[in-house]
């Protein structure tokens, strides 16, 4: 896993490299690849669930980005444009191989129980939060994982996340709220197993 802070990067830092690529500087493109390859791979891996395929699709994504770089008009952030291409190429790959991505975790979400976010937070304080949350995040569906990663890791706005995933900002907002609840349920099962037992006994 790699921790990268991309928030400081933006259109101002990407545009000079884009211009250099368009004038034939191949090495300038490697800077853009290095900058976005982690998120592109993460998105592809969440959708495809297979590392080799995700690497292949990610590389293919960058080749495509290179080919159509001239069509980038700067109407959105370059990162949003890159992630949108990565997201849709991964979905195309899944469809091309007649597979489906998991999108139904919210429907499986159990009803809210008597423990609140506050209770769970208190219990988490005493434990290894990151490890527990990391495990819970991996239990989310591909789509929910992508929404969480784009919004909370990359710091994209609801509108930008919606632009990438072809969802209305309000839909993204509702889905993120439900995903937070779903995560809370998953975490409660881990940090308050006695509640899970009580719930099961009802």
């Amino acid at each position, binding site marked *: 896993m790699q921790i990268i802070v991309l928030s400081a990067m933006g259109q101002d830092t990407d545009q000079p490299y884009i211009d250099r690529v368009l004038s034939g500087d191949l090495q300038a493109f490697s800077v853009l690849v290095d900058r976005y390859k*982690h998120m592109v791979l993460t998105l592809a891996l969440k959708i495809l669930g297979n590392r080799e395929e995700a690497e292949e699709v990610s590389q293919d994504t960058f080749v495509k980005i290179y080919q159509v770089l001239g069509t980038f008009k700067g109407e959105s952030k370059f990162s949003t444009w890159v992630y949108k291409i990565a997201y849709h190429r991964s979905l195309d790959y899944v469809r091309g191989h007649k597979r489906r991505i998991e999108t139904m975790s919210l429907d499986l979400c159990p009803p809210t129980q008597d423990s609140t976010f506050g209770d769970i937070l208190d219990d988490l304080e005493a434990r290894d939060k990151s490890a527990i949350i990391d495990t819970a995040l991996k239990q989310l569906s591909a789509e929910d994982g992508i929404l969480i990663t784009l919004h909370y*890791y990359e710091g994209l706005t609801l509108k930008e996340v919606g632009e990438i995933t072809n969802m209305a900002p309000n839909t993204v907002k509702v889905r993120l709220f439900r995903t937070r609840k779903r995560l809370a349920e998953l975490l409660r099962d881990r940090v308050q197993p006695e509640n899970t037992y009580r719930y099961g006994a009802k």
Partner: protein
Amino acid sequence: MEQNEDDKWEALLRDSVRMTGLEEPSPNFTASVISKIAALPVPSGKIVYKPLIPKWAWAAMAVCAGVLLPFGLWKTSGNGTSWMFFEQMEGLAEYHAFAKIFKMEVSEGFLYGMVALAFFIFIQVFVLKSYWNKRSVLY
């Protein structure tokens, strides 16, 4: 109160997601991409639209129109000459497949069906054009 808890939970989630980080690509990831694009032409800064109907198709349609139009004009001129050019060519008219098409009798329903089909194909050209335009921006 509940809103406050949700905010705390959101903050914790944000921190945790950032701590978890992103996937690490293979060490030769960038080199592989660069080697793949090395053989490609330098991308153009201008948008090059590929026409939905290629030039050769327009040329074919022009040839068809050029051949069919005189037949239509010949018929409407009323100079007593048959509009069927092939009928004037003894022997050939009986066997020429093109001439047989014009002699063919079809029902009204079939004709309406063909007109409707042509209309929907015409509409579809614009729908497809719009679809591919959007896609070309994406890809």
